[in-house]
């Protein structure tokens, strides 16, 4: 299925790249573009004239950096939240809907407003060339400052997805008959949960890793748009608006491949933990 998914994503991207700037769609052009894509020839941007691969390659690291920061926040916040809402505070679980009801762009705007009023800090994207955390010193501070709000926005959306994945996994695992059997054998609830339930919940969450990554991608598009982050997600929005289909297709392909790989790795890890049949 993973290979078929990649093949489908490849065909979809080639079909998008074959869309003409003017005039009707031609099947012949689509087949030519498919052959080009098979040779890793992704064409040129109709706006800048640069190779599409170079345009996307320049922006993709910034998105991956944002996704990594968001994923760290998402797992650090989402896993404990999911466990708490699933086990200890089950009655409060519906209340999470209230928080999760605001779309990501509303959360981003809220963070901007809070930083301006509560912290007296007006967010500004870091100047180009993009500073790196690895450079240390002032550059690292600039990079951290620029990453804080977009990373939190993506992380908040990711945390909502992670806690839901944990609660779903827990919901499936809690009904397993082995828990009762182990208790009859004399094991305490804590031991059963730690040794058997926890790996099963972790496996269930990992099996939904692809869905979590999709949420992070959507949130990244919003965060990049709101905070002026120079990533590939906002490049997608601009390329669609300007009908730059070669760049659009390549961004779509890159995101689909990352998403499929994440899903595949998540399912593999879940199987290794014994949580997915």
């Amino acid at each position, binding site marked *: 299925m993973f290979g078929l998914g990649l093949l489908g994503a490849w065909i979809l991207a080639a079909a998008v790249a074959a869309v003409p700037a003017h005039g009707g769609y031609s099947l012949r052009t689509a087949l030519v573009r498919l052959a080009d894509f098979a040779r890793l020839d992704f064409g040129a941007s109709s706006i800048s004239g640069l190779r599409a691969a170079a345009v996307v390659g320049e922006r993709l690291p910034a998105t991956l950096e944002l996704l990594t920061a968001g994923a760290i926040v998402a797992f650090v916040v989402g896993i404990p939240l999911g466990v708490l809402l699933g086990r200890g505070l*089950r009655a409060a679980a519906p209340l999470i809907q209230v928080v999760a009801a605001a779309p990501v762009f509303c959360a981003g705007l809220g963070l901007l407003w809070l930083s301006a009023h509560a912290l007296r800090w007006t967010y500004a994207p870091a100047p180009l060339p993009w500073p790196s955390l690895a450079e240390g010193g002032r550059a690292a501070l600039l990079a951290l400052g620029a990453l804080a709000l977009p990373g939190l926005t993506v992380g908040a959306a990711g945390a909502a997805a992670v806690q*839901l994945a944990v609660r779903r996994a827990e919901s499936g695992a809690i009904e397993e008959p082995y828990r009762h059997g182990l208790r009859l054998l004399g094991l305490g609830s804590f031991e059963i949960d730690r040794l058997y339930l926890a790996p099963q919940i972790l496996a269930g969450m990992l099996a939904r890793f692809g869905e979590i990554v999709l949420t992070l991608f*959507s949130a990244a598009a919003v965060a990049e748009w709101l905070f002026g982050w120079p990533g590939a997600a906002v490049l997608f929005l601009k390329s669609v608006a300007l009908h730059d289909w070669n760049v659009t297709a390549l961004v779509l392909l890159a995101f689909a491949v990352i998403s499929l790989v994440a899903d595949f790795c998540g399912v593999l890890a879940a199987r290794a933990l014994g949580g997915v049949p």
Partner: protein
Amino acid sequence: MMALPPLRQSAAPSLRMTIRSIGIAGLGLMAVVVSLTDVIARVPAGTDHVGPPLTPPSALFQFGTDLFGRDIASETLHALAVTVDTASLAMLVTILAGGFAGFVAARLPWGLGFLLRWIVGVLTALPPLFLAILCIGLSNRGLAPLYAGLAASPLAFVRAFDRARALGTSPHADYARATGVSAMTLLRRDLTYELREGILAVAARALAAVTIILSTVSFFGFGSAPPNRDLGLMIASARETYIGAWWTAAFPIVALALLILFARLAAGLEEGERP
């Protein structure tokens, strides 16, 4: 023979019913407000200079005014009406192209169903938001509700397909086939049970999903256009002023969040989640 997992986990009926009742009541209240928008709203949509620009909430302007002196209360009501209208249409598309089509596709002959499952499965590797924006970019923004509905449908399609396949190999399906019940009759029977048991939850979940997609698409500038502003576009237009004038964004955000919240509550707890 395979034992089918239950559609939902065993639920505490009272809590589930209470949550759903709150959601349905909230959606009903919103429907009433939307249908009376022209009566409740002080001025028609897009009327400038109703008051001084950026007036804070007061007795005269309960939600304040925006940069162009538009009454935020009236604008929020009109934008809510546009959002509900477009989201309702998109929700219908999602139900038809997602759940219904997935269920029917699972019973198609000659492997057609699996071909469709593969095509739609590829689309699940992309965020629905990106799919909607791509489709709008390829055609025009007037079709945004259709594309938002279609973009939200792949996951529903895949889930319905897998469920229909499982139902097709269940004991009741084996007995039905053994007694000469036709495939079409079996499909009709399974669809009827599915609709009867879960249509409200499916519709409410779809409404929440497409509302988020549509408002985000409009926030990016790919959705509704003035004077028919929806809540997403209204919030986007408040971006330049809301840091100093919070009311320009806060009230549309609250209206949007309430709509999504009521839809989610009407769907009950999330799929597979215990009460």
